[in-house]
């Protein structure tokens, strides 16, 4: 059940990315180039996604106190704004600006017939793996905010 629901959600995500152009590095990079070959499309992608999620989450949390296929909602509870958050995000932004790919943009175009997304995704997965390995080495000194742990409730 929960595999099927995740699969369907993933299909909708993939179609959304493909239609929107978020998986096209040329288009993404042009959004970030207002003094050059600017293409404003991404503003509408992010705006459309944000407004839909904002309204959808509110309706959902008002109507239900648990999801359909799991015992509880897993929502990050940390409110700490630290160097990890800011530094990691800055580094991610630099990489997005170099490549035009973000993780959610690259996965849906992985198998549409081009080799560049494959190169990018392999490098990106290596980056995630190395960062996780780094965390384990540093364990205790600098406790990371978990991304993959179990359910925590709170909104």
């Amino acid at each position: 059940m929960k595999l099927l629901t995740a699969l369907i959600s993933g299909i909708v995500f993939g179609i959304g990315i493909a239609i929107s152009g978020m998986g096209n590095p040329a288009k993404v990079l042009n959004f970030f180039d207002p003094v050059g070959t600017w293409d404003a499309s991404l503003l509408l992608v992010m705006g459309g996604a944000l407004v839909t999620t904002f309204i959808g989450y509110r309706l959902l949390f008002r109507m239900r106190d648990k999801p359909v296929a799991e015992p509880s909602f897993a929502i990050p509870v940390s409110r700490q704004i630290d160097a990890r958050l800011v530094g990691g995000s800055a580094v991610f932004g630099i990489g997005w600006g170099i490549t035009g790919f973000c993780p959610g943009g690259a996965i849906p175009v992985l198998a549409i017939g081009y080799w560049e997304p494959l190169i990018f995704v392999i490098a990106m997965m290596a980056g995630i793996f190395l960062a996780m390995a780094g965390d384990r080495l540093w364990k205790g000194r600098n406790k990371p905010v978990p991304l993959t742990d179990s359910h925590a409730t709170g909104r």
Partner: protein
Amino acid sequence: METVFTPWEALIGGVLIGLSAVMLMALNGRIAGMTGILAGLVPPFPKDWGWRAAFTFGALAAPAAYAALGGRLEFGVPVSTAAMIGGGLIVGAGAYVGSGCTSGHGVCGMARLSPRSIVATCVFMAATFVTVFVVRHVIGGV
């Protein structure tokens, strides 16, 4: 490389991305953040890797099926392979350390009005604008 402004495709695609985020929360109780999902698909695999694999497979299979049936998606890569490899590494590491990317922070976290996500989104958007400016108008390409 110029691209055409596509307001309707952008808006419809964006709404679908949002719908997917609401669906994954309603059905699986999860944030639809691609970095967090992918972080569960590298060793050491967490116990709940199954739904992550299913979401990722759905996300890549739908456009792949469209392309296999002869559909065409606009696609262009104006950067070198070396930049793709180096950039890919730092996208993965940065998004992991920063606890999220465009989907996790930019869509899901912003929609929850999470202070962390608002800060993260402002930081990575600013960094991306600066990087593209430097790459294109100072260095002249990578």
